[in-house]
């Protein structure tokens, strides 16, 4: 029974679950490092997922074929996430609105907008049709390449863990690593950190605070859109109303747990992903060990609370986060 739970698939599915969380969390990191709170990640993901799916469904019947359609769907998801985030950027940077209010409004708007468009595009609520092709697995090594025996087991683990994923899962890892490097080693990164800590200091040395913050919010929207594409076009293959189901908020927690760094955000997402994957596996065996499945269902959320309670005191947020910048 242990092998029903502790198998390569558990870890591979942890990575799969972690991917959308990590992308949104890194988006949150970049946004908050610039000094803008982004609790609209949830809504940006949802909008990205919807338009990504809608574009794919519209194009897959045309001459470009279903595979090209799903790639265009991915690009559409990223673009709509970025576009949608402009509302948040405008409200919080130019209108100096309370950023939590703007983010909340955006989340509600995303839920209503996607539900409404669902009805008007497809004539029914719930889920869209499935796209004909989801984003394909990147590597396709034969499972039995190393035969059975110890070597075979090792290969199964490696293959499942590292080579069983679709493109966005690999993109997320690359974005985490490159993002980390860029945050600390590039001009963009140093200026971004300065914006979120002390925008006036940045302003006095001639850095354009408004432009820097706009860019950061839009990047976070694009990453959230990519997370939405991962959910709809890679993992599920359809769009379902409210399919993000709180992931944007867990991503926000992952960003904090990861101490406002891209790699930290990824690793924190991986921890959340792992508990979620574990919870699914444990549900399968819950009748055998006489624990109600709801108990396992609860675990990822309990972990979120515990982790944030334990970490919040020590993790230091960017000093100027949530504060609109006003020139004197």
């Amino acid at each position, binding site marked *: 029974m242990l092998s029903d739970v502790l198998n390569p698939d558990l870890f591979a599915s942890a990575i799969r679950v972690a991917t959308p969380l990590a992308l949104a969390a890194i988006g949150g990191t970049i946004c908050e490092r610039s000094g803008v709170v982004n609790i609209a990640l949830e809504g940006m993901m949802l909008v990205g997922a919807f338009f990504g799916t809608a574009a794919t469904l519209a194009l897959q019947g045309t001459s470009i074929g279903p595979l090209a359609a799903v790639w265009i769907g991915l690009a559409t998801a990223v673009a709509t996430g970025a576009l949608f985030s402009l509302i948040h950027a405008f409200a919080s940077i130019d209108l100096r609105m309370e950023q939590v209010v703007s983010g909340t409004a955006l989340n509600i708007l995303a839920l209503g907008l996607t539900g409404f468009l669902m009805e008007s595009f497809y004539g029914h609520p719930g889920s869209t049709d499935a796209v004909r092709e989801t984003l394909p697995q990147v590597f396709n090594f034969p499972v039995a390449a190393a035969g059975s025996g110890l070597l075979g087991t090792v290969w199964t683990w490696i293959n499942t863990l590292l080579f069983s994923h679709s493109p966005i899962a690999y993109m997320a890892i690359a974005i985490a690593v490159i993002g980390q490097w*860029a945050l600390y*080693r*590039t*001009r*963009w990164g*140093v*200026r971004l*950190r*300065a914006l979120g*800590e*002390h925008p*006036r*200091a*940045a*302003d*006095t*040395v*001639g*850095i354009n605070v408004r432009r820097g913050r706009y860019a950061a919010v839009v990047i976070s929207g694009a990453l959230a859109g990519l997370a939405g594409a991962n959910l709809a076009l890679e993992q599920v293959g359809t769009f379902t109303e409210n399919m993000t189901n709180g992931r944007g908020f867990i991503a926000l927690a992952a960003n904090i747990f990861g101490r406002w760094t891209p790699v930290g955000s990824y690793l924190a997402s991986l921890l959340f992903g792992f508990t979620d994957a574990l919870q699914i596996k444990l549900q399968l065996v819950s009748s055998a060990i006489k624990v109600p499945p709801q108990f396992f269902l609860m675990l990822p959320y309990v972990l979120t609370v515990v982790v944030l309670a334990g970490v919040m005191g020590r993790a*230091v947020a960017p*000093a100027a986060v949530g504060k609109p910048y006003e020139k*004197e």
Partner: protein
Amino acid sequence: MPLLEVREITKVFPGVLANDKVSMTLDAGEIVALLGENGAGKSTLMNVVYGLLSPDGGEVLIEGKPANIHNPRQAIDLGIGMVHQHFMLVEPLTVTENIVLGREPVKYGQVIDLAFARRAVLELSGRYGLKVDPDARVMDLSVGMQQRVEILKALYQGARILILDEPTAVLTPAEVRELFGVVRSLVDEGLAVALITHKLEEVLAIADRVLVMRDGRLVGETRPADTDQAGLARMMVGRDVVLRVARTPGSPGEVVLSVDDLEVDDDRRLPAVKGVSLNVRAGEVVALAGVDGNGQREIVEAITGLRRPKAGSITLRGKDITRATPRQTIAAGVSHVPEDRHRRGLVLEFDIAENMVLGDHRKAPYAHGGIVSTKAVADTARKRVADFDVRTPSIHVLAGALSGGNQQKVVVARELGRDPDLLIAAQPTRGLDVGAIEFVHEQILAERDRGKAVLLVSLELEEVLSIADRILVIYEGLIVHEVLAEEATDEMLGYYMTGGGGSKLSAPVEKGGS
């Protein structure tokens, strides 16, 4: 031709004429002090030069050419650098990152050339004797070090004109001497320095020329050789000022506050106070002198109930208040003028009347059965505003709209109005000008003469020497020296404050070291 010329600059804020046709010049190789009380318009003028404010009239010329400066970037490009009173440093970034920020050397278009940046920083720091660790994070540096980083930042950006806004407000005596040495070497290299200050002795010590401002106007120009402190003070305030309040020796009575073997941790849970014992008697002012960050804050917070001590005891007139809450502490007869009037002393969004009774607002006559009596509050506020000479058009002006001196008067009025047994005054004159300092000092001494116990926390030696009866020097969480005020000198206190007396933790530092 002067390096910088300001012609008839006028700047109007809503209701205030901050600069009224002010003209001045600044030459390469000279230090000009801009002297004036808070609100005289010194900082406004320099903020105009630096492009942070746009003037309503007049012009700025650099080397005789009219300069259209609309933002700091343009000022920097013209060779103007400014070290602000509140540092413009990004704390989590390294020294090097802060210095090059905005003008980062890059390779491949975006990647910061850190090796090049480090070399540039070290080269500058060597040339002007401004030693810094280029890889340290700014948040880990002392205030004096952070100021060096600010100066290096301006130099890295190519400043030929350096504006220093109240640079000594946060420094220890040793750091001030060091800063003045640096400033002297900068002007020897051909830079021009404008120094904004309201401290008379500094002006006399460092300036080549002094411009005195009052109420937005330039009211005089002089040279240190032609004047003295009293002369400068008269120009600045417009009347004769008592620089050291007259006082009679105190007549200490019974012990009011007694602290025994107190140990307190700081925010990072590191020991900040490591076994301090002290007592303050009725009718005496005891000064706790020390450089910022040596445990004074934690002692004050422990006494006032804002922080829980780890060990030791605190008694007030024999009553144990070691673990008392702030409310119980106030009830026991402790008043507290906190060091940060914005964060702790006042609610800036409340009006003066509300701030005047804060802490007593729940008791009669200010409230009955949980309902505030606005009339009683207003009556008290009006009386206190009059008694303490708070300059305000109305008691319903928000505290945040007052000048620093008037804000401090509100805090002092409230805390003294409570008629406490013990007054704790932490940096009570920080950021105040001579007129207001004089007033606060008089109030504290009057309190003493009424038989109250006063614990003064200060890093200003002037202040400590002029109003304390007894001085305790604190260093690294320990009292390292105790002396009667009449036997103390600047040099002696400075020596002990910077570790000269040694402590249980660190080896003694050579005299004059920092």
